[in-house]
Each structure stands twice: as structure tokens, then as C-alpha cells.
């Protein structure tokens, strides 16, 4: 059985990035290899100069959802990029940026946070995904 977990990160709001970071850290703690592929707005959130910025929430959060998220942050919940850093410290977590999205956003590898390991095309992504599960967020 291929236990590699592949996560495609598309959305760039803090709630979805946090969900992705939690899934990544949980899988890494169980020893599963995790492969992240950053596309569109998720890739934009991984820019070195913006990773710690406020990326807002998904539309369905509403005012009550926003208040709940802020309360958790005020209570000391780690931001998603910190959870992602801890997941990488466990090992077995690889983060790749989608080449097409790099072109779309007019960014180069030098613009990305060091959490990102490299840049790859969709074919390389599917090859790395193998027979394992793929999740799109």
C-alpha cells in the first residue's frame, strides 16, 4: 500500500491553510510521507514577505466564524505556517510550488518562504502522488 498523502493547496485563506497544516502535521506524526503541491492563492500565501500576513477567511466563515477564529488565535493557537514548520521538522513533508501558478503570479523561487522545497509541474506532482490518496483544499 502506498501511504503517501498528497495535498493540493489551492485556497489562500488562513482557515483553509490551517486545515491543510493540521492534516499535514497529523499525517507526519504518524510517519506518513506528505507531499504538498501549491497552486494559485495558496502559493501566493507562501510568499516570504506575506506568509505571516492576515489572509482572511473563506466566505462561509461569516462574522461569527471570524470571531471564533480570532478567539482561538488570541488563546494562543499556532498560526498555520508555524504548524507547517513543525510538521516539516518531523520529516517526510515535502512542499512544491506549481510552475503554472508561479507564472500566473509572476513570482520566482527567491520570492517564496524557505518552507517551500522547490518548483514542479503537474506531471511531476502526479508521479510523486503514485497510488496514494490525493486531497484538494
Amino acid at each position, binding site marked *: 500500500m502506498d501511504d503517501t498523502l498528497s495535498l493540493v493547496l489551492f485556497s489562500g485563506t488562513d482557515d483553509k491553510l490551517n486545515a491543510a497544516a493540521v492534516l499535514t502535521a497529523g499525517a507526519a506524526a504518524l*510517519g506518513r510521507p506528505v507531499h504538498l503541491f501549491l497552486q494559485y492563492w495558496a502559493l501566493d500565501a507562501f510568499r516570504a514577505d506575506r506568509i505571516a500576513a492576515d489572509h482572511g477567511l473563506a466566505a462561509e466563515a461569516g462574522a461569527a466564524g471570524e470571531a471564533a477564529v480570532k478567539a482561538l488565535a488570541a488563546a494562543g493557537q499556532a498560526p498555520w505556517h508555524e504548524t507547517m514548520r513543525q510538521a516539516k521538522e518531523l520529516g517526510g513533508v515535502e512542499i512544491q510550488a506549481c510552475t503554472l501558478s508561479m507564472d500566473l503570479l509572476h513570482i520566482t523561487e527567491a520570492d517564496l518562504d524557505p518552507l517551500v522545497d522547490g518548483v514542479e509541474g503537474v506531471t511531476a506532482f502526479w508521479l510523486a502522488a503514485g497510488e496514494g490518496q490525493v486531497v484538494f483544499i
Partner: protein
Amino acid sequence: MIETTPLAKTIDARGLSCPLPIVKTALGIRELSSGQLIEVLATDPGSTKDFEAWSKTTGHALVESSVDGKVFRYVLRKK
């Protein structure tokens, strides 16, 4: 049987939300030798099921799981 082996390490994960208690434990247990015990304190209410699942998957035995007020306490023996 009463557990008498001394604790080799304590992880204070109080105030941390899922999955950081498990992540901190996974990192901390690496520094121990096989058979040594690690204690974890947590306040995340989901941590009980998480530690049971993590123990089952990794093979590190969960020798104690208890709760005192809002603080959960786990003791694991490194595989």
C-alpha cells in the same frame, strides 16, 4: 502492575490545539531510548483519541491516560 520506571521527559502541551500535542510528543520521543517513558500534559479535549490512535500506529505503548479537571495526562513507553 504499578508503573515504577521514572519519567525520562515531560512535554507540556497545555494550551496547544490539535495536532500540536502529538507533534511535540513525536519530536520529543526521538530523544529517548527504547523502554524510556515520556509524560505529556495537554488540554486539547480531542487528545485522548489522538494519543490512542498514535500509540496504536507507532507502537509506542500508552501506559497511562488520565484526566484531572481540564488537564489530560498521558504516559507513553518508547518502542
